[in-house]
Every structure is written in C-alpha cells, then in structure tokens.
C-alpha cells in the first residue's frame, strides 16, 4: 500500500514525488513512457541530443534572490541554485510588421522600448503593471482572475497594436484558451516572462530532470517507467488504487495525477463518459534545424523571437490546413550567456514553433504524414525568415515533431500543450482522494508545473497529518 501514487513522471509529478518522499511517505510515480519528462523530455537522434520542449525556463531570478517562484521551488525541493546551472538569455524580441520590442531579464528594457516606440502608451503600460495580481492572489479566488485580458488591457492601453504585441509571447508561453487569456494566467505569464525573464542550463532539460529524479530516488521514492495507468479503481467516490496497462494492481491511500483533467477522469472506473468537448485545442509543430554555424555568426543573436505577420495576433487552432504559420516562436539555445568554462553548444540550433491542428495531422496516412513534416517545416522556416536572417544554407540536420508526436508520448488529448482552457485551480476531482497536478491544475511551463506539483502535494498529500 502506497501513501501516494503519482501518475506521470513529468515536471509536476517528479516535484510532487520529491516533497512526499522527503517527508517519508511511501510514494510511487507511474509513467507510461519509457523515459521521464513528459511534455519536456529529451531524445537522441543521429548522434545528437535534442530537447523536446525547453526553449527557456521562465521566472529567472539571480542567485541569492529570496522571493519569487524559482527560489521558492528550490527551497521546497531542497535544491541549490547551482543545481540548475542557469545561464541568462542574451535578449528576446517581439517582432510585428514595422515595429519590434526588445525585452530581457531586466524589466526596464521592455518599458524603455515601449517608451521609444509607443511614447504615449508608457503610462498605460505602467497601469497594467500596477494592476497585476500578486503570486499570492493566484489561487483563483480573486474575481479578476477569470476576466478577459484583452478587456483589462484595453482599459489601460489605447493602442491595439501594443496590446497584441504584449499578448503574443504570453499566449505562446502559457495560454490554453483560444483568442483571449484569463487575466490571472496573464499575470502569471507577465511576471514569468517580462518581469523575471528567461534562462537555460547549458545541458538543457536533461540537467533539470536528472536532478529531480536523482533527488526523488535518493529519498527512497519509486519510479516505474513503462507503467501506464489504465484504470483508477473508485468505490463510493473514493479511490482505492490503480490498474496498470499490464494488469498489475497497486493500492494507494491517495492519487495525484498529472495526466490531465479529462484524461484522468476517463481512467476512473465510475465514469462512463468524460466531457471530451472541454479538452484543449492548441497544439504545435516544432521544427528544429541544426546549423553548421552558431546563429550569431549568421547575424542572429536573439534568445527567443516571437513574430506575427499582421497587426492582429491570432491565437487559435488553424482554421484550414495543418499549420498556421502567421505567427511563431524562434528559439536559439545558443543565445544564452553560458559560463566561460561551459563554452558554447557544439552545434548551432534554431527551433521554430508553429500552431498546428491535431486532428488533421492524425488523419494523414503514414506516407502523407512523413511528407507533410518536411513541407510544413519548410513553410515554418519560410515564414520565420521574414523576421530573421535566412539560415537555410547552413542546415546540416533537422527534426520535426507534431501534435501527433506530442500526443503519442504524453497521452494528452489533442496533443494540447497547455491542456484544457478551464483549469481546476484547487486540484480536486469528483473522487475525494484523487487530485490533479500540472498542466490542468493550472500552472504550465517548467517552473509552473514544478510549482503545481509542490503545492498540490503540500495541500492534499502532506497536510492532514494524522
């Protein structure tokens, strides 16, 4: 009998596991895939290391800072700042036709860029910053949490283009809702991206995952890979345990699931029909190009570039076609200020993220699917080079993954990267000892998912101490 069974060895599940194992619980993390990491895993191909997700860790704070999500999660996981070896971004940018705004880890940069390009909107921008909810107010109780961000922004900023430009990176990095964004989520992402900023470990997501899993195992936690949960046993509204894909049964006093809200409900054997209509719709393709040069040698020194090719930013599932390349994110992991003893990454890398439609990708035959990967990667690059130097002559290797890939390795409905638009902020379900953590509890991104795992573990699995 386990004290807690955790479904999923992504960021949130591993973080929750560390908390529980640290306080001597018997805890087991069950992961269906053959490796850890979930939406932010890693793989090896043609002799090269690839990250699935990591463009940037948001919420950067310098060593010695005591407040904010990063110091908080390090304390809770008993990790040192140096365990993540974070290198700061060189600088990021939002590019729309005719106007660009730079931002970095010093919040003043974005403000000065707005003062330069939108001089009569600086006061409005300051009003937005003044209205941001604090991290402490983000449990969803604040009535402003569910307001429309577009509405709140329009009350402060009279230039629609600036509103679109400010929303673009924040929606890209953490908005499950199409076209608009809950104001609470906007506040989380605004702090994470514009006020705190981006960083990355030289070794990428591997380093973070390795540290989390080492800590978990060191505390006596059990991790079972290739151990998908096919059913959660529920009796009279109470979960008694799980059944694995191979039929093995495990008992637990409580269950914490990072599989997603609908995905988790579907596992419960007292539910006949989960509300599939509520699943998230937004998924991506990620086109990764390996270059024979460092991007800076080609004149590209941006860490993350968010581009959009018209005055209006369209954040929705593609209406026609497999992908919508009007907007995208370009990331170069090379463009971080790595420590001198780390040097530079062995290859030049350009990653481009584009909105994609899960159902259309999944409807393709195998042959068409393979062909479309190439076609859509070319289209994504062609769109991106309107906003950056043309790097195509320097490509020596490439990989693409699609909503189908994301779905296949994380089992999230629709390959939805940020989960369902309606979040379950208190983490509860219809089953009294089954809780949600991660994406569908409400905190997304690497830091968000870790914070979610910690807070749900604290709130439901540690607190009522008999």
């Amino acid at each position, binding site marked *: 009998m386990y004290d807690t069974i955790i479904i999923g060895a992504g960021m949130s599940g591993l973080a929750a596991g560390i908390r529980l194992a640290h306080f001597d619980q018997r805890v087991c993390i069950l992961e269906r895939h053959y490796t850890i990491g979930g939406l932010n895993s890693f793989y090896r191909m043609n002799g090269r290391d690839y990250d699935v997700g990591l463009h940037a860790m948001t919420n950067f704070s310098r060593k010695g800072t005591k407040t904010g999500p990063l110091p908080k999660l*390090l304390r809770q996981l008993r990790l040192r700042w140096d365990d993540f070896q974070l290198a700061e971004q060189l600088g990021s940018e939002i590019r729309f036709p005719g106007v660009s705004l730079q931002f970095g880890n010093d919040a003043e940069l974005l403000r000065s860029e707005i003062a330069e390009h939108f001089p009569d909107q600086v006061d409005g921008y300051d009003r937005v910053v003044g209205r941001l909810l604090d991290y402490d107010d983000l449990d969803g109780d604040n009535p402003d949490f569910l307001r429309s961000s577009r509405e709140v922004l329009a009350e402060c900023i009279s230039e629609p283009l600036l509103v679109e430009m400010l929303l673009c990176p924040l929606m890209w990095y953490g908005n499950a809702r199409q076209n608009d964004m809950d104001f609470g989520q906007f506040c989380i992402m605004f702090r994470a991206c514009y006020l705190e900023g981006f960083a990355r470990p030289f070794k990428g997501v591997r380093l973070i995952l390795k540290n989390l899993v080492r800590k978990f195992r060191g505390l006596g936690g059990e991790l079972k890979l290739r151990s998908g949960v096919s059913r959660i046993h529920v009796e009279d509204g109470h979960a008694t345990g799980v059944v694995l894909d191979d039929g093995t049964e495990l008992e637990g006093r409580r269950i914490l699931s990072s599989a997603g809200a609908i995905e988790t409900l579907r596992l419960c054997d007292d539910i006949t029909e989960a509300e599939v209509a509520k699943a998230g719709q937004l998924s991506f393709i990620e086109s990764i190009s390996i270059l024979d040069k460092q991007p800076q040698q080609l004149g590209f020194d941006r860490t993350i570039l968010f581009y959009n090719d018209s005055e209006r930013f369209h954040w929705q599932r593609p209406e026609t076609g497999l992908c919508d390349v009007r907007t995208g994110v370009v990331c170069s992991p090379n463009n971080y200020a790595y420590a001198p003893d780390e040097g530079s990454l062995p290859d030049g890398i350009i990653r481009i993220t584009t909105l994609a439609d899960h159902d259309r990708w999944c409807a393709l035959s195998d042959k068409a699917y393979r062909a479309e990967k190439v076609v859509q990667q070319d289209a994504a690059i062609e769109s991106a080079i309107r906003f950056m130097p043309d790097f195509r002559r320097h490509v020596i290797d490439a990989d693409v993954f699609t909503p189908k890939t994301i779905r296949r390795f994380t089992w999230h409905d629709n390959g939805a990267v940020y989960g369902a638009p309606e979040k379950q902020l208190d983490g509860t379900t219809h089953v009294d000892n089954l809780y949600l953590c991660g994406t569908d509890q409400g905190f997304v991104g690497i830091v968000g998912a870790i914070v979610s795992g910690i807070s749900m573990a604290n709130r439901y699995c540690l607190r009522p*101490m008999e």
Partner: protein
Amino acid sequence: MTNDEIREEIIDILEDIAPDEDLGDLDDEKSFRDQLELDSMDFLDIVMELRKRHRVQVPEEDYPQLASMASTVAYLEPKMRDIVKN
C-alpha cells in the same frame, strides 16, 4: 537537548530548507520572515522537519510562536528538553 542544541538543530533545518542562505549573522530576536523571506510554505516545512527528525508535534495554532529564533527555542524547550542529541 539544551537550548543551544535546540538552536543548532533549528539552524540545521534552516540550512536544509534554504541551502543558499548565509545563516551566520542571523539575529535571534528578529523574525525569520523578515531576515530570510520565509513564507507560510517554509514555516510548514520547519514544522514538518521537526516532526520528521524528532517526532515533535507543533499544532497549527502554535505556528506564530515560531516567528523568530528566540521565540522558537523558548517554545520548543519543554518539548525537546528530554530528547537526547545524537
């Protein structure tokens, strides 16, 4: 445990919770919150570490007693006096 040993034990717990913190110049009379920016999650951790390490229970209504080092040691003295330091 003597009061000095209890203090040492609390320092040890704080080092565990905040490994990047320099606790050498901690002022025993000033609140942890102001000096170390500890929040409610961290206080809960101090309580849970005490339980984990010494089986000392601190009921929720007593949490305010753990505000500073001086008040924490005073509060724990009767609970920990009979524990043998190992």
